[in-house]
């Protein structure tokens, strides 16, 4: 997929009301592949920590015999992190307001995950 393809995949996620940013992250190295973030969100930090969390959660899920994760929603006091693993070792990550429509964001994350090679 081209850089513009990544951008359009992320645009659909950031188009959801309450989403502050979306990014594609490489799981193995924790680096940002593409991002669309509001000012003030530390993309590199989110990428590194989300990738680390994905690796550890993946191990926990495998150890628990429940297979790989397909969607996580981490709710915090002032926002939420929503993540869908994609092919090619990528994560699709959304940073959102606490009251975001998580179902709609999940749908867009899954669409973006399908569209990235």
């Amino acid at each position: 997929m081209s850089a513009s393809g990544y951008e359009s995949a992320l645009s659909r996620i950031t188009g959801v009301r309450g989403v502050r940013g979306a990014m594609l992250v490489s799981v193995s190295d924790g680096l940002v592949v593409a991002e669309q973030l509001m000012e003030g969100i530390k993309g590199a930090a989110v990428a590194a920590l989300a990738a680390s969390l994905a690796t550890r959660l993946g191990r926990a899920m495998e150890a628990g015999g429940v297979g790989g994760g397909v969607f996580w929603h981490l709710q915090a006091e002032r926002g939420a992190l929503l993540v869908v693993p994609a092919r090619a070792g990528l994560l699709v990550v959304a940073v959102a307001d606490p009251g975001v429509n998580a179902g709609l964001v999940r749908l867009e994350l899954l669409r973006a995950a399908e569209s990235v090679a």
Partner: protein
Amino acid sequence: MTARAVEGWTLEPLTAFVQEAGARLVLLMTPAGQVLAQSGFTRAVDVMSAAALGAAIYASTTEIARQLGEPPFAGLAHQGERHGIFLAAVATDRGPVVVLAVYDLEVTSIGLVQLFFEQLAADLKSASPKGGEASQVLAADFERELSDSLNSLFGR
């Protein structure tokens, strides 16, 4: 994992970096290869080799940048099959400090190492004594200085 320092002000930032970034081996040194602190090394000969090689890589990349008319590179990362290497420099009141970190790809990632390197850089800047740059080791004193440093780093 035990961290040891020749220059005490580097110890706390180094310890925090090792814990946060999950780095396996870390060396803080001057651009000339004088070791300021280390974490994870068990043999003096490995510290000496790593310091010499790290300083040489830093010097080479700095010269390449100079020839390209660029400021020195912010960092250099190399990913192997099982381990990664990260090399970068921090400007402090005691002069530049070169950081060489070796990390296990099963444990951490270049993203995390880079992320916590930013914190290490800030911590080293604020912890460095304000008394100017460290004096360079003269050739005549080199062997004694090296021996003293290794004794400090390995608690002999």
